[in-house]
């Protein structure tokens, strides 16, 4: 049984320390998984975040026998981990383009399909942080949708809200972020 399963179990049992341990593990696993996939794929191939996250889930937790809360915890952490990976990549590539000296380039640069061009990603992430400060749940929804590529239905499941609510939140959060990213647009 993997460490992650232990942590998920501990979270279900109400161990407050467990939540803090989950993210680094999931983050690490996603990176490892991506790196290992890149090594096996032809050059120029890009990986899909959705597939990666779900595969990570299957690898770490196995599909069966996991309580729903575990799934929610896991996908919440995975969305955050995927966000960090994608933002790191965008920052790194940008630094390289601007010739900012020796950027710490990981040799197996993780070619994970980014949901948007680098500049836009960084801008969206910044706006998303602002949204999170105002309304954490909606920001969480955007993370699941934008960085992991979940559908409304799935994200609603993770956040334990109805699909109708998720859809309304999504429409609002999207307009809100758009207004942030393109002021005056």
């Amino acid at each position, binding site marked *: 049984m993997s460490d992650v399963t232990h942590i998920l179990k501990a979270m279900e049992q109400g161990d407050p320390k467990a939540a803090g341990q989950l993210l680094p593990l999931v983050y690490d696993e996603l990176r490892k998984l991506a790196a290992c996939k890149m090594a096996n794929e032809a050059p120029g191939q890009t990986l899909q975040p959705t597939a990666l996250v779900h595969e990570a889930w299957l690898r770490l937790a196995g599909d069966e026998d996991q309580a729903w809360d575990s799934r929610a915890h896991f996908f919440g952490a995975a969305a955050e981990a995927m966000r960090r990976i994608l933002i790191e990549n965008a920052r790194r590539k940008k630094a390289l383009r601007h010739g900012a000296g020796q950027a710490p380039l990981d040799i197996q640069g993780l070619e994970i399909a980014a949901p948007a061009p680098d500049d836009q990603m960084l801008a969206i992430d910044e706006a998303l942080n602002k949204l999170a400060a105002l*309304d954490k749940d909606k920001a969480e929804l955007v993370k699941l949708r934008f960085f992991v590529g979940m559908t409304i239905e799935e994200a609603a499941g993770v956040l334990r809200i109805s699909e109708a609510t998720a859809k309304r939140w999504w429409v609002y959060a999207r307009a809100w972020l758009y207004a942030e990213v393109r002021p005056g647009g």
Partner: protein
Amino acid sequence: MLGSMQSNQKPASSPSPEPRREEAIFDAVLALAAEQRAAYLNQACGEDTQLRRRVELLLRSHDHAGEFLDPALRAGTNRTLVVNPTAPSEKPGDIIGHYKIREKLGEGGCGVVYVAEQTEPVRRRVALKVIKLGMDTRSVIARFEAERQALAMMDHPNIARVLDAGATETGRPYFVMELVRGIKITDYCDQNHLNTSKRLELFVQVCHAVQHAHQKGIIHRDIKPSNILVTLHDGVPVPKVIDFGIAKATEGRLSDLTVYTELRQFIGTPAYMSPEQAEMSGLDIDTRSDIYSLGVLLYELLTGRTPFDAQELIQSGLDQMRRTIREKEPMRPSTRLSTMLVADLTAVAKRQSAEPPKLVHFIRGDLDWIVMKALEKDRMRRFESASGLALDVHRFLKNEPIEARPPSGLYRFQKWVRRNKTAFAAAAAVVAALVLGLGLSLYLFIQERHALRSERVALQRAVAAERRQAELREQAEKGLALEKHMREMVPITDKFTTAGRLLSQGQFDKAEEVMSEVPLTIPESSIIYNALGEIYGRRGEWPAAIRNFTRSITADPTNHLAYHCLAPLLVQTGDWGAYRKHCERVLSQFGETTDPAVAERMAKDCLMLPPPAASLVRFAKMADTAVAAGPTNSSWPYYEFVKGLAEYRLGHFASVLEWLQKVAAQEGVPARTAQADATLAMAEFQLGQTNAARATLAEGIKISETKLTPGRIDWNDSIIAEILLREAHELIMGAPMPTARGK
């Protein structure tokens, strides 16, 4: 849960009132027709020009946002295909076609199975399986219809008949089958410690069933233990093969798949998949694929393992998985057994009521050859029919020479080639290049000839495109209807949102008040009631907690979490009548559940006090369902505990020691440890080990006093621990437990 839980803990993160108003107006405007919007904005924003500017900016952004952030645009991400297994859209009481859904029977990789009641043309109970994957429902049903006649001709005591298929209102395909209440063949064998010969006899019956289907031209394509259920008829185990025709109807999803679903398609059964199925070309599957899967089944019945570990297959990634299934030679069953860890081998042998060395010896030789012949990568070399396989097993049982023999010289050479693949691949590549060159020129020649016919093809394509357009239009119209339904739901979902916000701000009374305006018939509200119940439960406000969990169950009678919290509260507040009724309800709702976690919780809840004799057996059966999940399950200690508790209630005191000694020694989940201590202490006392009983009881009480302090998130399990400890104290010390804890 994640979101709402976080906001429960940090009320500061809930939105400030300003954006709330913006959002409310924004939502409302979007629901209005274009010509009504300005008037509404005037009224809603009044003098507040800043607010109005914000809302207008948001509305403009909404109009311009277009495909901004749209995850569906990401290349290769197909959004309809990923599963949301936790939110089945059907629930008990729903009507699907001629069928009324009753309780959930089980849930697998690709579907949820319910017990359903058929009313016409005959009244009977059936199993109804709703396919979860986002599939093209129409083609699934079309494929099923194509095979329907053949399926109808199947008539065999070991085959569960497939009766009907259709689409639910939400457009998911469903299948209706003869209702079989049984357990997985592998679990049945292990639980009953069936010896090897008995296992082989069951297996022969399965082969005959598969043979019958093959004779009618039906290939199963998904033979695996969970599709072979064993039921008892007058005490005689009868295996039944279920899901015939379903794999065929639901295949062909490969056309529009993402990497994930491609993998996903594997998930249920990679371990049982034949090499030709692993190719996933989908074109060339015949009865011999089923023979391979039967071989895997036999392997597992003999060794307790599949030839390739399912988990390892999945973890190796898709390509490696295919390669393994197509190329890697599995270990022979006897070799597999003798290379296991001693403890594992002992466990496997014990489940077959055998001594480890004898088991290995029994399997080595003939049985090895039979299994390996069924598992041949080249299907030409497998048994040519299921009855051929059955016959050989039968011969073995009667000590006659078997047909599957050690291979010939040529055969060994081929194996050798397979093992030294790289060297041969180089030589083969040279040959292939020559052949390919020739093939290419031939292809170009044929192309030219076909060019003449291509005009006609183009015309056909245009017609097909038009048809597709019509389909899309139809879908769009359906979408509009759904949209309308969602708008009508807005007032109610707003109440949920408001209640959720109030919860996160700590205004529980107000949240409860808002919820009182939502009809109790809306299942979604059970989430809010559970949250409220949890809060009151953690604070020790029991009547309020009871009230909310009761409402939660009314709103969603399948919400087992609510049952799990309510039961200890009823005992703790001394409401015995309500507790007894609760347990009866648990039996009717979950008595037949196959979900080990649900079975464990419900059985524990109802065994915390000695239950009436009539229901004791059924709760004990639920404990068996839990332990059927096996020691590899991450919740295993919980299952061990509930089994131990059931054994205690049944008066099997010696067995209690076996089940509970390990759990009681395990730290980490104090409530469970205390529960195990209490139960173990009682069993020790009943066996006359008074000193041990006292010591164990003291352990449990110590844990309860030091660790199970009020306000824990597992307050309900803590209560169960306390209740069991009280019972133990009275029994062992002959006096009520002093109430040291301030409750």
